């Protein structure tokens, strides 16, 4: 529907403003839009700004003022309305409030406008830079710009959205829907073009004044909704009658002006007819906001088709195999309970926990329960015996490692040698205890014998006479005997030589003494012996005899 303007056409359109308005009127009425507008670049402004050039209003009319008594056609009435709106805008812009009384009777006043008419007038105040708003974008890219769902557009894309949303009030829409009528929302669309220019205008003060008037107009419209319905119905009928004539006339004029425009408009008309036929077939009200239309290709998207949004509810869960438990079912079960009395209770369960019959099969005999019980006892006993044996073996090993004198591995030997070792330890304890008691007594005897050997040495004869009990004969031999009850402590000091130890122990043995401990040291050829012995027999030997025997053993060479 957008006109493809060219410089030649621009020159043609410049002097003849009426043909442009006729084209806009034909486009708006053919698709039943509320209005159509034409912006062009202003020649008076330094920057290239798109300003309002012309427009055609095809919407609701609140108050009609007829300047002549002659009957006018619907087309002429709408044309006159557009002119009146323009005159009102210019009057308001120039601030000719004082001339209100002087204006012609047919002029409109602000109180005579409806919401849609107010919107149409306010659009005249807008000016767009290239790239700003829909007309600006179309001018910059030199292409058609379509806006679908205008009521959802933001102010960035659609600067007049806030003003345009006034008719989108939910209450108003609901009221319109309740009357089974198409919503009274205006259809917003522009006629962008490249080169034509017009005067520019727009001030904030005017906009503020318009907003206040909008509010008042809305209140008035709410009261008079019924009147508008009647008017719309009549207007629609009249428009239907004159549609063919209007289309024919428009075609002729376009033919005279420019052939491409004529072809484009004819194509649009065909598309519209096809759309209405499709809607009639589907018995669906046309939804302008939902379909996309362009000059070259007409198509109806699937979103325009009625969609059954409600889906079938999901199937509920199926019934359960169980029934609600009640006392009656309990009594019924009570009757059924008579049957298990015959059977052995928990038969299979007991069979399972008894080992799944493995025991019974192993025994290959009857009386499973009894045999199983006995086998269980035997099994437990075997397990216990095994653990006990392992424990005993472990303890025997420990015992073997503790007792130092054990050399054999069998348990009997380990036990026997352990017993012997323990007895020996006990005996040592007794001996040590008795020795400590003896130490504190007065039974010790010391005998020093050396007088015999002194006489054999002539060089020490004088010394011997003076000290006969102290000095030994040769100075290197000394024998000390200490007797305590049955214990004897021998201390021998002499020059070391071969077989000396053998002779000493032979002497001890001949005296019936048992050697218990021996401490021997040989330092610089001088041997010291400390022998702990005990009387083996019942008789005790005189210490003197012991000393004498030891002297003999040492003296032998």
């Amino acid at each position, binding site marked *: 529907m957008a006109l493809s303007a060219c410089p030649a056409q621009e020159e043609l359109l410049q002097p003849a403003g009426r043909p442009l308005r006729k084209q806009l009127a034909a486009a708006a009425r053919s698709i039943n839009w509320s209005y159509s507008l034409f912006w062009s670049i202003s020649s008076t402004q330094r920057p290239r700004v798109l300003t309002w050039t012309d427009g055609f209003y095809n919407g609701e009319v609140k108050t009609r003022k007829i300047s002549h008594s002659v009957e006018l056609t619907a087309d002429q009435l709408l044309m006159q309305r557009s002119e009146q709106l323009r005159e009102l805008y210019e009057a308001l812009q120039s601030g000719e409030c004082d001339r209100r009384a002087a204006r012609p009777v047919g002029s409109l006043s602000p109180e005579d406008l409806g919401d849609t008419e107010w919107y149409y007038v306010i659009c005249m105040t807008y000016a767009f830079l290239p790239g700003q708003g829909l007309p600006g974008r179309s001018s910059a890219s030199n292409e058609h710009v379509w806006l679908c769902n205008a009521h959802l557009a933001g102010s960035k894309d659609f600067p007049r959205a806030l003003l345009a949303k006034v008719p989108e009030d939910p209450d108003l829409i609901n009221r319109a829907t309740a009357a089974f009528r198409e919503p009274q929302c205006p259809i917003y669309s522009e006629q962008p073009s490249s080169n034509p220019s017009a005067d520019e205008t727009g001030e904030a003060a005017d906009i503020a004044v318009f907003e206040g008037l909008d509010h008042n107009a809305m209140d008035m419209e709410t009261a008079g909704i019924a009147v508008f319905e009647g008017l719309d119905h009549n207007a629609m009928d009249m428009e239907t009658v004159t549609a063919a004539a209007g289309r024919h006339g428009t075609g002729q004029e376009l033919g005279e002006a420019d052939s491409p425009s004529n072809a484009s408009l004819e194509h649009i008309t065909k598309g519209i007819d096809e759309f209405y036929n499709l809607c009639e077939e589907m018995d669906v009200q046309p939804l302008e906001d939902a379909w996309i239309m362009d000059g070259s290709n007409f198509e109806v998207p699937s979103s325009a088709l009625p969609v059954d949004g409600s889906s079938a509810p999901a199937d509920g869960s*199926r019934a359960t195999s169980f029934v609600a438990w009640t006392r009656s079912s309990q009594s019924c*079960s009570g009757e*059924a309970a008579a049957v298990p009395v015959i059977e052995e209770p*928990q038969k299979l*369960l007991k069979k399972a926990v008894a080992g799944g*019959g*493995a025991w019974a099969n192993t025994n290959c005999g009857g009386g499973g329960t009894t045999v199983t019980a006995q086998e269980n006892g035997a099994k437990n006993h075997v397990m216990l015996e095994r653990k006990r044996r392992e424990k005993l073996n472990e303890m025997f090993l420990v015992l073997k490692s503790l007792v130092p004198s054990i050399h054999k591995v069998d348990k009997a030997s380990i036990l026997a040698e352990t017993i012997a070792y323990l007895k020996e330890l006990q005996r040592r304890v007794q001996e040590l205890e008795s020795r400590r008691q003896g130490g504190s007594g007065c039974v010790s005897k010391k005998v020093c014998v050396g007088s015999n050997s002194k006489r054999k040495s002539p060089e020490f004869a004088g010394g011997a006479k003076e000290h006969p009990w102290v000095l030994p004969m040769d100075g290197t031999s000394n024998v000390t005997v200490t007797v305590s009850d049955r214990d004897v402590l021998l201390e021998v000091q002499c020059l070391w030589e071969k077989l000396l130890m053998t002779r000493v122990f032979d002497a001890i043995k001949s005296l019936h003494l048992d050697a218990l401990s021996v401490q021997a040291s040989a330092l610089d050829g001088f041997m010291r012996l400390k022998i702990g012995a005990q009387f083996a027999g019942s008789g005790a030997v005189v210490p003197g005899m012991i000393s004498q025997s030891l002297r003999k053993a040492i003296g032998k060479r």
Partner: protein
Amino acid sequence: MGGVGEGDAWADQEQGNGGGSRGVGGGGGEAKRSEIYTYEAAWHIYAMNWSVRRDKKYRLAIASLLEQVTNRVEVVQLDEASGDIAPVLTFDHQYPPTKTMFMPDPHALRPDLLATSADHLRIWRIPSSDDAEDGAASANNNNGSVRCNGTQQPGIELRSELNGNRNSDYCGPLTSFDWNDADPRRIGTSSIDTTCTIWDVEREAVDTQLIAHDKEVYDIAWGGAGVFASVSADGSVRVFDLRDKEHSTIIYESGSGGSSGGGSNSGAGDGGTASPTPLVRLGWNKQDPRYMATIIMDSPKVVVLDIRYPTLPVVELHRHHAPVNAIAWAPHSSCHICTAGDDMQALIWDLSSMGTGSNGSGNGNGNTAAGAAAEGGLDPILAYTAGAEIEQLQWSATQPDWVAIAFANKLQILRV
């Protein structure tokens, strides 16, 4: 002669069961045909369990309980389209299995394994359709009695036969086992030699062996990755923690406290009468590990326990008229439990009212006891009557809407 007599007894059972089954089947079929599926085996079914894999729904393993060395195990599958249960796999098994269980592998990440417990713990490998040829090629017939019904059917493979006794090839029969679903490498077995053995299935070795009780251990149940409980003929429920193997906690002892101990003790290990009554089955609530339930031998009572209050039952379920054979907690709800017994009934209980009381303090327990005494016991919410004594009961973990029961030679799948 004993065998012949027992055969006659079974024949009588068969006729009686047949009649009962026909009557119940007729009534149930008319009303709820699409909600009950029945499979008839050629032998008495005892061990039975659901498959846990996501890609093998409505698959169960059933095992026979015959008084002979050779027993059978079948893997059956419910065809949802036709509503029939058909055997998928059948093989021989030595000795009657006391329990059977699929590997708890919900996402089908590990090989498809099935475990059975009898004289030993056996792990079977069920080949999938992908490695059917490999399965057939690697079938190890030397290791056991493996036989297929059809030549085209892939053969099952005895993957491992676990023997816990190192000194000999013979060990005490296993009464039950449980596969750890938190750590599927672990299986805990209970035996009549008073021990519980924890196996490492991947290494096929004993992880831990504990002397759990003074008498036979009848059941074992995992409560977590390293915690399990067992029940025994000594009438106690004990909880073990693998991190502290020297110590176990006695949660409950029958014959003391609230348990009055009923029925004869003819089945007890030592024979004669004993003060504590043996406990034969144990179920640990997987949704709320604070609760477990146990069955008393020869008793129609089910005892629900709270591990935080040892020796004091939370509630005792009294509505069965004959000894209870099986219990199963709901896998998707923490306060529902299903019980089945010799009175041919499967009951579903709602313990939420009792559970709320026990969550509080001792006063709560007192209130619970008072409430139980006043009400005369808890009533089940749902009931189902089968045609014979119900021997086994399993609540599906992957399809919580379904419960499987086994009675006589029939396997039934019920919708909850």
